[in-house]
């Protein structure tokens, strides 16, 4: 049986994590190719529905990347995202979707290494969790 290959959808803040991911690339850091990036203007603009929908469609993991506390380009979007994500994760656990599939990390524009390590760790954990039970489910 082929090894389970998790897919990750990443919503990255334009000012910090997206630039950090870019730095990882230009620094030629190696990290798994399982991640698909969507650039957001702020982690605070990630509506939880953007996370719920891919999870219900069978995506294995969602990574939300924002600026470190105090660094948000819009002053406090990352703090608001943290509250929203905490509620969303409680919701996922409540209904039996594993909240460990959703990661929220503060990664700055200079932390290319941290971005590459985060993706590596996330792929490792998602492999342990196994495929999303809804992956081949047409019923949702």
């Amino acid at each position: 049986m082929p090894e389970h290959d998790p897919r990750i959808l990443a919503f990255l803040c334009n000012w910090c994590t997206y630039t950090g991911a870019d730095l990882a690339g230009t620094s030629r850091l190696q990290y798994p190719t399982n991640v698909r990036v969507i650039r957001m203007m702020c982690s605070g603009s990630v509506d939880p529905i953007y996370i719920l929908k891919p999870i219900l469609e069978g995506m294995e993991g969602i990574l939300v990347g924002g600026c470190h506390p105090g660094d948000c380009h819009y002053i406090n979007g990352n703090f608001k995202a943290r509250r929203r994500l905490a509620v969303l994760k409680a919701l996922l656990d409540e209904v039996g979707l594993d909240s460990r599939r959703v990661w929220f990390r503060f990664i700055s524009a200079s932390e290319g290494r941290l971005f590459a390590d985060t993706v590596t760790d996330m792929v490792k954990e998602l492999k342990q969790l196994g495929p999303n039970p809804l992956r081949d489910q047409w019923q949702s």
Partner: protein
Amino acid sequence: MAAWTVTAGEGPGKAIAWLAETILASGRAEAVLMPLELPSGRAVVPVLVKQADLLQRARPLAPLAMGNAASLLTGVGRRKGAGPVAAVLRPCEVKAAVELIKLKQIEPGAVVLLEADCLGTVPAQAYRQLIPDWTAWEAAIAAGAPPLPMDQLRPACRACVGPSGLDGREGNVAALRLRVAGSPTGTLCVTANPAGSDWLAGLEGLTLTDRLPADPFPGLSTQRAAAWQQQRQGVKGLSAGINALMDEFSICLRCANCRRACPICYCRECVFDGPTFRPEPDALLKRAGRKGGLVLPTDIMLFHLTRLNHMALSCVGCGQCEAACPQGLPVATMFRGLGEKTRALFGYESGRDPAEPLPFTVFKEAELEPR
């Protein structure tokens, strides 16, 4: 906390009607939202009363709530700078009104909340067979005898956390609480918060008292807590995983009655009615192709999970969503269960205080770690 007894009128229901009438006559409120019995006697509905003689039909203690009356206040409660409307509400309706004030759907100055005791409500169909003898009914409530067996109540009422006088809350959220259950004089006892006290000052016919109603139903809160645990464990899927939950919700019609019935779900245009969920034909075919088939209407689970995510923090547990569901899905139980968990993250309580900010509007620099 100021407290008065009202002895006017025969029985507590009439005493509440008298109070409303006196408030109207004194010009303290421009109108009163009050549950009135319809001429047929087969239903009690909230009525915006301007003409005092209609209050003869007031049934503030009727065991019927066909909707959460707080959502009705988003109409008349939007006015700024005009005389207030007084609203006689149940505890769950007062809490919903408080959440709607925070959500800026009700002007705090436009309404005065009067919280009447409630011992639970029955489904509207059952109420039509009930048609109680009002004198006996209200006397039973005043005497502290729950007039209906638990199993006749709506599920949310069976597990209600906030019947007046039992929730241990100090002081009033509502301007006035109209307390009947366990009243030491067998009539109406009115307690006021500071704002309510100022508003009521000088009203004729009230007698100051220091005798407050005692816990009228020892053991009822324990009984209700047990009922809640039972309901929560009864939801298939909450413990058995997403597939079991999807099985449960496979009979959902996506009618969105739950959304309409929810007093807190206030958006004028819901995301689920927008263009995102009216996709292009090609997009639908593509989705169907990806997994071989696509259930229509689409996104039933996404609808419920998104609503949970939007509203659980503010959920007041009135259970109107569940009462409105034609398929009998346990939506209210899910909302309340998740609400308790998420509110605990922020030390928040819905309907406690209109000055308490909604958790999504504020943050602390250090909290919720690890993420």
